[in-house]
């Protein structure tokens, strides 16, 4: 230990004990302060959002400026569409990367891939939006649901990859060895024993990243843009819940503010529920390892 530790021992016991209790208090207070925003947000979202959640919120289109009422039906459907498109890209790519990292994750390529996945995960999401804007929107010359789905999909890849790698690592090595000892080729062991055995947790991880993606706003602003009507075509701008919340929140109308809170309530409940489910499903598995 350090030399100055001796100083501690010579100090009076009572003083040290007082410092100890004070620091206990400080740490507990720090934790409580950190959690104040959580409870405040949850409280406000519930109090402001719940009254505005009615049938028309789920079933109606937004009303023109100045008219009360209307809903976010198209935005809800839009978010579902976008997240579906995103999953088409992000889920297979992410799981395949996770498989590569967990089953073949040695050597130089693997460390490069790990580095890239880490970097991709930490790039601000608005940069992904700009990238898709430069890649797709500038070429197609219009905002589209496809562009929005692409942006969300790229965002999903690293999170899905990381969570599936973690899950695949939970499969004990002797399971793989048992399969190989039976003479099965490694690809069969990987796909039909390892992946199949751990698919539940992997699906949970995927759903968690889907929940995260459905709350993303920044990458959608200039890819999927927004739309006040129902949208059936994927090459047209499409509205989404987060973008609609943003638009309504910065507007000057009280009725729109109420709807923004209601939309926020839906997003928060979705994310909370997914996190809670993940906790419950994964907790026993993680403890065993």
């Amino acid at each position, binding site marked *: *230990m*350090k030399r100055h530790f001796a100083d*501690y021992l010579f100090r009076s016991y009572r003083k040290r004990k007082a*410092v*100890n209790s004070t620091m*206990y208090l400080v*740490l*507990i*207070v*720090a*934790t409580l*302060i*950190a*959690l104040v*925003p*959580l409870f*405040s*947000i949850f409280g*406000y*979202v519930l109090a*402001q959002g719940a009254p505005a959640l009615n049938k028309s919120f789920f079933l109606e289109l937004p009303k023109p400026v100045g008219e009360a009422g209307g809903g976010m039906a198209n935005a809800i459907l839009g978010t579902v569409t976008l997240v579906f498109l995103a999953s088409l890209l992000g889920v297979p790519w992410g799981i*395949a*990367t996770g*498989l*590569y990292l967990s*089953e*073949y994750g*040695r*050597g130089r*390529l693997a460390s490069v891939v790990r*580095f890239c996945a880490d*970097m*991709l995960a*930490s*790039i*601000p999401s*608005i*940069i992904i939006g*700009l*990238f898709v804007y*430069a*890649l797709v929107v500038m070429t197609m010359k219009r905002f589209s649901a496809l562009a929005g789905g692409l942006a969300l999909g790229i965002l999903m*890849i690293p999170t899905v*990859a990381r969570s599936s790698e973690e899950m695949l*690592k939970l499969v004990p*090595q002797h399971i793989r*060895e048992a399969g190989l000892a039976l003479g099965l080729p*490694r690809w069969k062991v990987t796909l039909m024993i390892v992946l199949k055995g751990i698919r539940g947790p992997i699906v949970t991880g995927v759903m968690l990243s889907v929940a995260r993606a459905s*709350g*993303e*706003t920044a990458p959608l602003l200039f890819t999927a843009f927004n739309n006040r009507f129902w949208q059936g075509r994927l090459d047209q701008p499409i509205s989404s819940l*987060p973008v609609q*919340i*943003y638009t309504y*929140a*910065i507007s000057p109308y009280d009725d729109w503010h109420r709807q923004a809170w209601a939309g*926020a309530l839906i997003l*928060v409940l979705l*994310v909370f529920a997914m*996190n809670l489910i993940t906790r419950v499903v994964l907790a026993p598995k993680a403890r065993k390892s």
Partner: protein
Amino acid sequence: MPGVVRAKNRPVREIHYGDRVFAGILKIPAAGLALLLLSIAYFLYRAASPVIVKHGWAFLTSSTWDPVRDVYGALPVIYGTVVSSFIAIVIATPLSVGVALFLTEIAPRRTGRVFGFLVEMLAAIPSVVYGLWGIFVLAPWLRTSVEPFFKTWLGFLPFFSGPPYGVGMLAAGIILAVMITPTISSIAREVFSAIPLQQREAALGIGATRWEMMRLAVLQSSRRGLTGAVILGLGRALGETMAVTMIIGNRHEVSLSLFAPGSTMASIIANEYAEATTDTHVAALVEVGLVLFAVTFVINSIARLFLSRSGNR
């Protein structure tokens, strides 16, 4: 992992022909990630090139941002990004270390699990919801109570001068602090739990109180990991977009006062994309994005360096 047959760090050598194909196929999406990262850099550069050619390095040092006259300088937004992230780090670092210490060293197991879950929830709330809360709860509170308080007692400092708007640099910094606290504290928790139990027992064994044990056995030996955690939090704060856009006030001026509205690199992109009608305006916004991309890339690489050396990740 209990690897029995394989040598460490040696790629798997395949016997079956199908396995070689399988390994090759799996390499495609994995290597694709590297390609994706490169193409992000390339496409941003290409889209920004008109402004890069026109302004060169002056883009970073000029403080005029005037789309009407087609003059673009990123200094105000860089300043805004640095200041808001700095406020966030100053608030979030002690708070997150406190949270992590409480969760790993003090809290009983079950309490720790509940509180740990709650802190994680803080990270899961969508950014736009933070922004909504910021507009309608945080900003009014700052305007009516916090900022007048600072003004009365510290108003002689240039940082606390000017009218209290509520929205502005301080609000953005505070909301960023809330958002990065779970990031920093979860990594700090990992760093703390990687410290061997014996080290704590040794400290307690020679008569240290629990707090002294935390200082000597936990905090002393996790400085490097904590630095990495804070840098990672900084990386997140720099690029946070929606909440900041909604609460920072969006004005492109360098002002010393923390009450004054400002803008950050991320917020200017989100705020002006709709008004960007000329090609150069779009290109200027993309160049801001390119700078942000480069900065966060460097910051996150540094964080990774710190965290991998300390034996975490």
